[in-house]
Every structure is written in C-alpha cells, then in structure tokens.
C-alpha cells in the first residue's frame, strides 16, 4: 500500500476541511499557498473536491455538526489518503476540551497520520510536518521493498 502512497506523495493534492475552528489555522494553511511559503514548488495544490485529494488537512475542534460531515468526507475520499491534523484544536480540542458541543477528539472519529501542534502553527511548521511525513513513508517503502 505504501508504494502507491509513496507515488502519490510526489505531488500531493490537499483538501482542507474546517470542523468548528477559529479559522486561524485555516488562514495559516492558506498562507502556505501565498508567495512567501509557496508550497506549489512541491506540487501541493488545493484540490477543489475530496475526490481528487491525496492529503486531508483537518483543522478545528470538531463540534457535533461538523463531525458527521468529516466522517462522510473521510468515507468519500480515495483510500490511500493521508490525514493531517493541524493546530491544537484538531490534535486534542486544545482549549475547547470541556465544551458541550465538542464531545470527542478528532482521532476517535478518523485515523490521523500526522499531528501538527501550534496555535496557530507557523506555516513553516505545517510544511515541516508534511515533509516529515513524506520522509517516513519513503523509509517504509525502502525497507520493505
């Protein structure tokens, strides 16, 4: 499986979903697309729909309404998908852990591959997180291929 994933991660298409976030992390994701941190040099483009996406960027503390949509999105996504949780709220609901509308953290709903903490994480931290993930997948393919 990770051979296909390795091929996909040559130029990963990114789909961003926000589940009840304060839109700081969403804007840091958009900052990565703008001239200063341009991630299109690595081939990363914001995919218009989940069907074309290889990487699913999830931000936000996951309130009840959004969690159903995230589950649906994860099922619709093509299967060698990589889920990246960006920001404290996506990792563990951060400061909203006792909110009556955010019952469970994200990784109880969908399996998460990389967690990028930071409130909001710097765009460099997001890029570094994805680069770390790509290297990990490369090693996995190398030692079992």
């Amino acid at each position: 499986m990770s051979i296909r994933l390795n091929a996909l991660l040559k130029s990963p298409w990114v789909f961003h979903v926000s589940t009840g976030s304060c839109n700081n992390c969403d804007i840091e994701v958009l900052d990565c697309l703008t001239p200063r941190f341009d991630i299109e040099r690595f081939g990363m483009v914001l995919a218009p729909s989940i069907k074309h996406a290889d990487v699913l960027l999830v931000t936000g503390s996951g309130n009840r309404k959004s969690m159903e949509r995230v589950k649906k999105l994860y099922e619709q996504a093509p299967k060698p998908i990589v889920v990246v949780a960006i920001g404290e709220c996506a990792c563990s609901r951060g400061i909203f852990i006792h909110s009556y509308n955010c019952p469970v953290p994200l990784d109880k709903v969908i399996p998460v591959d990389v967690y990028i903490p930071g409130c909001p994480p710097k765009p460099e931290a997001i890029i570094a997180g994805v680069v770390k993930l790509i290297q990990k997948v490369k090693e996995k393919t190398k030692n079992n291929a």
Partner: protein
Amino acid sequence: MKLPKIRELLEAIKSLLTKPYTSKFPYVPHEPYPSFRGQPKFNPDKCVGCLACEQVCPAEAISHRDIVDDGIPRRIMIHYTDTCIFCGSCEANCIADNEGIKLTKEWELSFFDRSQAYETIEKELQLCEICGVVIACKDHLKWIAEKIGELSFSSPTLYQSYLKGLNIIDENILKAYKDKGRSDRIKILCARCRRETTLTTK
C-alpha cells in the same frame, strides 16, 4: 497604449533583478523573531513542583501524578504538547522567579503518535513522617524556608526540611519516637498530624 508598455518593461526588469520573495524554507532553517513564544520546557533543577503553572494554565495542558508506593516518593510533572496553546501564562506565574518553566523558541513540534506527545520531569516528594501523606515537594519546602527567612523557624516542617537541605541533621534522631505524642512535635508533619501532636497531652 505605448506608454504603459514602457512602464511594464521597466517593472519587468526591476522584478528580474530583485531577489525572489519565496522563502527557501525546507532547505534553509527558519529562525523565528526573538520574542516568539514556542514550546514551554520544564527546568528540572529550578522547578520546585508547586503546581502553580497547573492551576493557571487556561488549556489545562499541565498536570501531575504523585507516585508514593513504589520507589522514592516522587511527583511527575506532565506537559502535554498536543494541548498547550503557547500563551506564556505558566512562565509568567512560575514562583521560582519564572525559571521553573520557560517558553523556548522551538516551533517545529509535529509528531505521529499522540500517546507519547508529552514531556515529564520528576521532583522528589516529602511525605509526612507519621501518617505518610504527601506534604509537598522537597524543593518547594526549601524554597519557602529560604523565602521567609527566619520566620520559617516557627514551623518545624519548614526548618527541619531547610536544615535537612544543609544536611546537618542525622536521620536517626527523627526516627526514634513513633507514638504520636508530644515528642513528635519536632518532625516534618502534615497539617493534620501537626494539629494532633500539638493538641495531645500524652
């Protein structure tokens, strides 16, 4: 229409000469500004284990675990990286003159497995010598004794732990009496035992 053509030409040349604006990040390490608030780190020898940072943390990212039964009684301070919001109020309220926990410049913290996303340090605990309940960390008692100076001689718990720090007390004097009588008064006691030893007439 001719004029704008020249302006565009000039602009093209100018932007040809200027450096590209995109940062070459993954190949050139990024250095944040000096006032950047990064990942907080415990400082084992400065921290006194007083749990002020745990009460003040808005995201409840700092918690502790007291291990009493196996091995040396110790308090494990845990800092959860996946919950901390880097606000700096733990550093601002740390009683060991803001050195116990410090915000570093570290911003690259991504990890793969959330169950190991925390850091711990251990501080030795001081148990009550009669009932064995947790009083505080040893460094904390020493810190209080130093802070209030000679006033600490009003309470045996403080000056005993202070003198123990200077290790001019030999252990066996304290161990001799164990019957919670008046003679236990000058031991390191928790509040309840201290009240009992003061009130008893035995």
